[in-house]
C-alpha cells in the first residue's frame, strides 16, 4: 500500500460551461426522475444532468488513436502508463510563440536533475494564468522544437504534459510533435494548471481518465503527489 505521509499538491483547473476555449461543453439539467415531482422538504432535490462535450476540452489526455489509426483507445491503454514518477521543467517567462530548443530543454532538466526512463515530464510555461485572462495570449504559448521532442522520446519518457493548449509550431499543418510522441505510445496532456505548486525535483502523477471505448482523448483530473518534508 502507498505511504500516506504524502501531500496532494497539483490539481487541474475546473471545466466550465460554456468553455472559453470554444471546445464544446454544454450542461443540461433534467427533471428525468419521477421522484423529482414529489415535493421535497428542506431544499433537497434530485438532479439528473446530461453533458455534451468535446474530448479535448479543458485538461485532457491524448493517446495514440488521436493521430494514428489502429492504435489503443482508453479501454486498451494500460493504466500503468498513466501514472508514475514526475519531473516538472520550470520554464516560465518565455516570450510568446517561443520555440524551446534542445539546449533550452537540457538546461531546464539540469535544474531538477536527470530525466530517467519511464519519467513523466511536464513543462511549466506559466501559461495557465492566461487561460481565462486572454485566449489570444493563451494560444501564443511556447512549444518544444522537433529536436527537443526527439530527445525526450529517445529518453523513453512515459508521458508529456504542458500548461498550454498546444505543443506544435503555430500553423503547422502536420502534427509533427504529436506524431513523434504518439508513435511511441507517449500520451500528451494539454491545458495543465498549477504546475508552479510542484516544488520538489521529483514527485508522482496520477491521471486516470474514464474508460470509453473508441475515445482518443479525454478530459481528466491530473493530480500530483509530493513527499512532505
Amino acid at each position: 500500500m502507498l505511504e500516506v505521509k504524502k501531500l496532494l499538491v497539483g490539481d487541474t483547473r475546473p471545466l466550465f460551461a460554456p468553455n472559453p476555449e470554444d471546445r464544446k461543453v454544454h450542461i443540461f439539467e433534467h427533471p428525468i426522475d419521477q421522484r423529482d415531482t414529489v415535493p421535497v422538504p428542506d431544499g433537497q432535490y434530485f438532479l439528473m444532468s446530461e453533458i455534451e462535450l468535446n474530448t479535448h476540452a479543458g485538461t485532457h489526455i491524448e493517446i495514440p488513436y488521436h493521430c494514428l489509426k489502429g492504435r489503443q483507445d482508453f479501454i486498451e491503454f494500460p493504466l500503468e502508463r498513466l501514472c508514475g514518477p514526475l519531473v516538472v521543467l520550470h520554464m516560465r517567462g518565455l516570450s510568446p510563440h517561443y520555440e524551446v530548443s534542445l539546449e533550452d530543454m537540457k538546461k531546464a532538466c539540469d535544474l531538477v536533475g536527470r530525466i530517467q526512463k519511464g519519467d513523466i515530464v511536464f513543462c511549466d510555461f506559466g501559461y495557465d494564468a492566461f487561460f481565462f485572462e486572454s485566449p489570444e495570449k493563451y494560444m501564443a504559448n511556447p512549444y518544444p522544437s522537433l529536436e527537443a521532442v526527439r530527445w525526450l522520446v529517445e529518453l523513453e519518457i512515459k508521458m508529456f504534459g504542458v500548461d498550454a493548449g498546444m505543443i506544435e509550431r503555430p500553423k503547422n499543418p502536420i502534427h509533427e510533435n504529436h506524431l513523434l510522441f504518439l508513435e511511441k505510445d507517449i500520451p500528451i496532456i494539454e491545458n495543465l494548471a498549477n504546475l508552479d505548486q510542484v516544488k520538489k525535483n521529483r514527485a508522482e502523477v496520477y491521471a486516470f481518465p474514464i474508460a470509453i471505448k473508441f475515445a482518443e482523448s479525454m478530459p481528466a483530473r491530473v493530480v500530483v503527489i509530493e513527499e512532505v518534508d
Partner: protein
Amino acid sequence: MGKRVKLEFTEIIDLSHTLIHEQEGRRFQVKPFLVDFTPRLSDVKASPNVRPMTLEEADRDSTPYGYYVLLHELAFNTNAGTHIEVPRHCFKDRFDLSEFPLENLVGEAVILDLRGCEPQTEVSIDYLHKAEQRSGGIRSGDIVFCMFGHDRFYKTDSYKKCPYFALDAIHWLIQRGIKVLGVDTPEIDAPNAIRPVNHFPLFQANIPLIENLKNLTQIGVSRVYVFILPVKVKFLDAFPVRVIALK
C-alpha cells in the same frame, strides 16, 4: 540529483465499467469527427475541414491519419456507468464536482464483504457491523466500498434487483466518519422509495456516493489505496469516474 519517489504498489486494479456508445441504458453517445489540415499545406491561414463520421468509419486500419486528427464529441447522462455523485446531486447550494475537496477522494479504502446479501433485501446495521469486524474495522476518514459481488449482473435484468440499505445503516456509516461510500450496485435506496432518502444524509455530511463499481471481488484484501479522480466540471453534480485501487 533529485530523489526518486518510489511507487509502492505491485498491482493496479480498475474498479470501473467500460462505457460503450449507446449501450449504457442511460444516454451515452460517442460521435467521432476528423479534422483535416490538408488545406493548410498550401495556405497556412486556411481553415481545416471538419468531417463528422460514424464509429465504423473512424475505426481501425493500419494507415496513419497523416494530416488529419481524430476528435470526438460525447453526449451522455452523467449517471452513466461507474459514476460519482457529489452533494450538489441533492442540494443545490452544496459542493459541485469542481469544488469537492480532492483530499476526500484519495486515500485508504476498506472493503466490506456483503456478498451474503440476498437480492432486494435490506442491509441492516447489524449486518454492516459484522462485515466491519471481518474487515478489521472502519477507521475515521476511510473510503468504504460495499462489495455485494453484484457487478456480475451488470447490464442484465437482474442488476436492478440489488440489495439496498436501511436508513439507520446509512446513518451508522456516517457516524463512523467515512469519507466516501461506494457500491457495486446501481442503487442504495429501496426499490419502492419515493424519494432517494438514503442519498440525502450522505450528501448532508458531504460524503460522495459511487455507484456501479466493478471488480471489488478482485482486490482480495480488506484495505487498499484508492484514487477517485473525477473531472472538475463546474455546476455538475455527477460524472462517470475511473476508480483505481493500488495494492
